């Protein structure tokens, strides 16, 4: 039986980790993640889990410790945000290159400078090319569910890759919402025991991780990483199917909300998708054919499926809560790559919103849909990329 609770996003994810009871956890504080690992530290102190906690001195060391523990054959977790993820950058590539299924909740926060502790996606977008699987979550329930599923995905014998589970800093990590916890035993059973693949300290078959490979085979090694990423989508869908049986909650590669017959649509990640769904509903009440697409799996990116889902739209706005200065927003770049392969494609615009925790309001969504309606009716595109909600 599921248990209905009122908890914050951090609390929900900490509880998911408790239910999984991993072997090793790297702990180091950074706002807004701090409170998640702090809760986990108290689970350890209270004997609720048998995890070995390593209170490290920085995130660089945290990810290094996770790499060691994972290569030794443990089920390993840590969590971070912002500057912490940035400091891990070097180790992130090593974790994925060594094919170590480390699970890491990332509580999305803006990057310095200027220093800002609030929610935006710059941190995880900066890590999108590190070879990690990335799963994004709209709310606490999704963050909880995705964390549990992440173990099955990353640890799958055909995959063996590290996974980041992203949720919005403060907006989700610190807001209390109603959500449903699964039974401890059900989670344990769903995730299953950790299976080793090439652990260290196997005296019969000694191993080396991360050796020097130069021009002879490095290129092939990287292609192998690409190929394994290509298998991830199917595993994500299989795991989602099993999870639905357990929880009744449905997950895919992305969520298509009232998109089937939509003329105009917004593509948007995480918590702001929730706000935008309300706008879609209001527009639908007025007879406007508006829809929404909320990506869940960002790495690997489901290009074909997304193109298929957007193919009947006339105009689409991709909304980014981070920027690639001098380029387009990172989500926009992916969606436009997806759409380019189609013969008939919708007009596409990019809006940057909500940086450093700037509020994203329903009125912003409305404004964007109004602009899309004009474009869909044959109006000209004013600017392909624009910032919204800017104080002048």
């Amino acid at each position: 039986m599921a248990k209905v609770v009122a908890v914050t996003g951090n609390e929900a994810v900490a509880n998911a980790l408790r239910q999984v009871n991993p072997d090793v956890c790297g702990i180091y504080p950074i706002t807004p993640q701090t409170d998640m690992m702090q809760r986990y530290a108290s689970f350890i102190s209270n004997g609720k889990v048998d995890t070995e906690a390593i209170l490290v001195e920085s995130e660089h060391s945290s990810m290094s410790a996770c790499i060691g523990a994972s290569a030794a054959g443990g089920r390993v977790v840590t969590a971070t945000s912002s500057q912490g993820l940035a400091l891990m950058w070097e180790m992130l590539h090593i974790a994925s290159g060594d094919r170590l299924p480390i699970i890491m909740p990332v509580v999305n926060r803006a990057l310095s400078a200027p220093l800002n502790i609030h929610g935006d996606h710059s941190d995880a977008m900066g890590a999108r090319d590190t070879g990690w699987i990335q799963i994004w979550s709209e709310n606490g329930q999704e963050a909880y569910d995705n964390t549990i599923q992440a173990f099955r995905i990353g640890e799958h014998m055909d995959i063996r890759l590290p996974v980041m589970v992203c949720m919005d800093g403060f907006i989700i990590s610190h807001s209390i919402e109603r959500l449903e916890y699964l039974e401890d035993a059900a989670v344990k059973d769903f995730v299953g025991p950790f299976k080793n693949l090439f652990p260290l300290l196997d005296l019969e078959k000694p191993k080396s991780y991360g050796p020097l490979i130069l021009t002879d085979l490095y290129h092939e090694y990287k292609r192998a990483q690409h190929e394994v990423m290509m298998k991830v989508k199917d595993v994500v869908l299989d795991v989602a199917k099993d999870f639905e049986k357990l929880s009744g909650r449905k997950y895919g590669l992305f969520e298509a909300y009232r998109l089937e017959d939509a003329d105009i649509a917004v593509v948007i990640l995480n918590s702001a998708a929730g706000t935008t769904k309300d706008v879609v509903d209001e527009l639908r009440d007025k007879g406007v054919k508006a829809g929404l697409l909320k990506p869940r799996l960002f790495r690997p990116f489901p290009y074909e499926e997304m193109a298929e889902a957007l193919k009947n739209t006339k105009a689409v706005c991709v909304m980014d809560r981070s920027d690639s200065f001098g380029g387009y927003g990172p989500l926009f770049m992916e969606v436009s790559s997806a759409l380019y392969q189609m013969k008939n494609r919708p007009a596409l615009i990019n809006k940057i919103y909500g940086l450093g925790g700037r509020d994203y309001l329903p009125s912003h969504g409305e404004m964007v849909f109004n602009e899309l309606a004009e474009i869909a009716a044959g109006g000209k595109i004013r600017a392909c990329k624009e910032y919204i909600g800017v104080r002048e």
Partner: protein
Amino acid sequence: MKKIFDRPKSLKRVPFRYCPGCGHSLIHRLIAECVDMLGIRERVVGIAPVGCAVFAYDYFNFDMLEAAHGRPPAVATALKRVMPDRVIFSYQGDGDLAAIGTSEIIHAAARGENISVFFVNNATYGMTGGQMAPTTLIGQRTTTTPRGRSSRPDGYPLRVAELLSTIEGVTYLERVSVDSHRDVIAAKRAIEKAFVYQMTGKGFSLVELLSPCPTDWGLSPNASLRWMREQMAHFFPTGLLKDAG
């Protein structure tokens, strides 16, 4: 009537927003008084850490630069080398200096950089809500050691000043406290000396200041001072560790 006490010019006219009884307010004031006294307000540049004192630039009335967590000694090195006529100090917590930034401080010291470092040791990560720091005492409760720090598996507290005292590049090292009037006066003297050594080209100085964090210690401001005297000062004895000036 003659005015005998005023706010230092080196402090802006804004109230401190640190917690009641926090050592940062007091230490900011001591630094500001020394800067005034030495007449260097127009050529001093401070480096603010990440930590509760991230807001130092809101209070000091001179140029400040915000560094990433743990990096002030490297930033200070560069500032001093390109502007040798300026007086450069870094202001760092124990998380900043003794955890994430340990390598920066050791190498700045080893290079004998002509800078002044003010190291505020409150035995915890104050800003993030009181987690275990490398300086946390054995038995001290923090949010990541709710049953008290134990040497296994959490390791032993780090005495950074003692560690640095073995480095030849270091000119002046002193540990002070701000838990009594007498100690506050000694602390101010040490801060002044660290500035004077830099101004006379004597090299690397570090003043470690034991400082209360009532909020994260879960103690009243008064009880915090007592805890500093009774617990902290035993593990971190105050006094001069090195003076090669």
